[in-house]
């Protein structure tokens, strides 16, 4: 047991910082720091920059498919430095969800067609999993795909499609066998959203934005060659994807660190009755408590990065544990950030990534106020997406204690 940080990792972090300084556009970094969800323009433009400069847009993919071959630690360092510098999140559905599924289970033709545009940020992917009646119970999904010659005909509806309104391609879980047990009758299809019969309805959320959508499929014809792997084997590909989703979501520690940094910074500038807010002992104590919890999470993440996850005997529970505790901290810290700006915490700041005309507008209050409330509302969802906190606790109890 030796906790000294590997000099190679320190050097790599420096390399990433230098890269970001040279290649992350200042306007993008500014927007990335605010807290609004990245617009598709910034996500794709950044992916393009990463690809063109260093081939760094899909580091976690297999090397043969365009990945960088970095260690888990290096991938994490890269993600953390990008985040702290304000780099926009990339199109996660493409880069982190369907991309790895295609790498693992796709055929050569599918890899050739679909992977390069994801790598270059040319195609925006969205996820089609949940349905109005299939949330936690995803396997009960009812969108159907019926084989008709060399096409599948898709009918049904998906909900909670993040960034659905920007979607160009859509990976969808469909039911291809209604007689079999639910998990054994699901297939994984890649669907062009410009196909006739696809309707997207944006869903307004509490933050005043429309990042979510419902997608309706009315006799949509999908070429059979867009089926990933084998028919009716989609649930196993889904489990592969969900594990990645959980692991990558669970380790949202960089976001936690950024909140802490912001709270320290803003609370030193905000004044309450003549003194910086950070000088208030009660405030500082609450911050201390949260910071210590974040440090524990960070250390737990370091352990996974160095050791990997032991799939036997309850090791799988760690992803769920990180998600449960991490999500709670996201919620507490984003609320705390809103408190820090006092009266301006009650003010609505519209999203400049939904309406680009707002990007040059000035608003009342401190320059760091816009985006803080948006993050509070967004983080209410983090105990719901990727498996609710209740489901995660079930997983932990089962995996660790066989309860």
């Amino acid at each position, binding site marked *: 047991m030796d906790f000294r940080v590997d000099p190679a990792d320190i050097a790599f972090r420096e390399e990433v910082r230098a890269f970001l300084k040279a290649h992350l556009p200042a306007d993008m970094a500014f927007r990335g720091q605010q807290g609004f969800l990245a617009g598709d323009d910034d996500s794709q433009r950044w992916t393009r920059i990463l690809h063109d400069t260093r081939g760094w847009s899909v580091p976690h993919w297999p090397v043969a498919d365009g990945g960088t071959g970095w260690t888990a630690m290096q991938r994490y360092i890269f993600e953390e430095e990008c985040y702290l510098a304000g780099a926009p999140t990339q199109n996660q559905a493409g880069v982190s969800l369907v991309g790895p599924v295609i790498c693992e289970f796709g055929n050569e033709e599918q890899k050739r067609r679909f992977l390069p545009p994801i790598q270059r940020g040319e195609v925006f992917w969205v996820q089609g999993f*949940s349905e109005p*009646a*299939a*949330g*936690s*119970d995803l396997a*009960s999904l009812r969108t159907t795909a019926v084989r008709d010659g060399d096409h599948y005909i898709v009918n049904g509806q998906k*909900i*909670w499609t993040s960034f659905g309104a920007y979607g160009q391609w859509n990976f969808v879980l469909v039911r291809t066998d209604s007689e079999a047990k639910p998990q054994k009758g699901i297939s994984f299809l890649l669907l062009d959203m410009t196909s006739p019969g696809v309707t997207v309805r944006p*869903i*307004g*959320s*509490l933050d005043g934005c429309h990042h*979510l959508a419902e997608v309706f499929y009315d006799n949509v014809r999908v070429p059979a060659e867009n089926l990933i792997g084998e028919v009716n084997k989609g649930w196993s590909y889904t489990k592969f994807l969900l594990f990645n989703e959980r692991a990558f979501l669970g380790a949202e520690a960089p976001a936690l660190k950024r909140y802490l940094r912001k709270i320290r910074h803003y609370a030193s500038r905000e*004044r*309450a*009755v*003549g003194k910086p*807010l950070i000088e*208030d002992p*009660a*405030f500082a104590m*609450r911050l201390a408590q949260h910071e210590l919890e974040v440090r524990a999470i960070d250390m737990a993440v370091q352990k996974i990065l160095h050791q990997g996850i032991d799939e036997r005997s309850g090791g799988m529970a760690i992803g769920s544990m990180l998600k449960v505790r991490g999500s709670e901290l996201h*919620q507490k810290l984003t609320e705390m950030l*809103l*408190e820090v700006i*006092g*009266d*301006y*915490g*009650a*003010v*609505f700041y519209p999203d400049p990534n939904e309406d680009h005309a707002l990007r040059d507008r000035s*608003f*009342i*209050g401190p320059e760091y106020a816009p985006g803080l*409330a948006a993050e*509070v*509302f967004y983080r*209410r*969802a983090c*105990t*719901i*997406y990727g498996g*609710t*906190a*209740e489901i995660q*606790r079930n997983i932990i109890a089962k995996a660790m204690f066989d309860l």
Partner: protein
Amino acid sequence: MDFELNDEQRMLQESAQRFVQKSYTFEHRRNLALQGGGFSRETWRTLAEMGWLGIAVPEEMGGLGFSPVESAIVAEQIGRALVLEPYVMCGAFPASLITRCGGEGQRETLLGEIICGDAVYAVAHSEREARGQVHYVTATAKKTADGAWRLDGYKTLVVGAPVADRLLVVARTAGEVGDKDGIGLFVVDPTQSGVTLKTCSLLDGTPSADLLLEGVMVAQNEVVGEAGRAFEGLQAAVDESIVTLCAELVGDIEDTIELASEYLKTRKQFGVPIGSFQALQHRMADMAIDAMQARATLHRALLAFGEDSEKRSVDISGCKAQTTRSAKFVTQQGIQLHGGYGITNEYKVGHHYRRHLVLDALFGNMDYHLNRYARQIQREALAAAA
């Protein structure tokens, strides 16, 4: 002590319930927020016609002559229905301010306008660095040679300002920034020279603004009461308004619980209603306990009105902190229990969480009020030990 509503109070409650059920559906509210600028003059007039804008104003001054108890009864329904029009900030608060601070002839005139709904008043009392402290006032009021007053400074979170006919501005006539003496209350016309409203919406769609005052001239008769002696009335009006906001929060809490309970019974996953899962049953039980505590705290706050003013004010601070804590937990869980639907605008439940964030920011947040209450504990404990 009597916890039962008397006949008059019961009638008031029923008429408030009828009003929101008939005229303030969630659909109505959504449209008002999206297209109506968050305020309807017609609704304001209706509130006025019911007498609710002057509930706690003495009868001889044109009000209904009731007490904070009756304000709370109406406010709870306002909270349940998420009424956008600023019932407290543009109704109860300025009415209380003028009742307590205003001079003889002045009160009738100004209160008359508020109570009949003819003039919307917005109160510019808060400042960026005050963060809840009522006597932290940096905006200045300087008397000029001809007896008028010149106002300069910057006020924040002036709720209702974009739709207001009059602004009530708190500014300092004398003394240092944190002094209780030397605080004055002035009536300002929002369209007059030197007034700049930097308008915005609040998180829930309520219209609001920051106010920049640059050489705003106020005539002697537009000073409310005696210049420089407004603090006591101001603090009392703030206390009264905080209690009424606590009642709103109780309404938010109760409605959230009803919505969540209904959802748990109808939403099915894995072949069963999700309300059959023990974890969620326990969650509802915890929410119910917080609701009980919040209502009890509201009662405690109403009781505090019988106390002397210093103790009353701090007790009410404690009540705001406690009620907000309960509201935070209940409204957070209201979202959680609705899954994805809790995040959407289309479902009502998430709006109660959003509303509690606004209420937390008004008149100082949970931490500020808890700190204030804690300092009283320190004083009392040390005094008792001495």
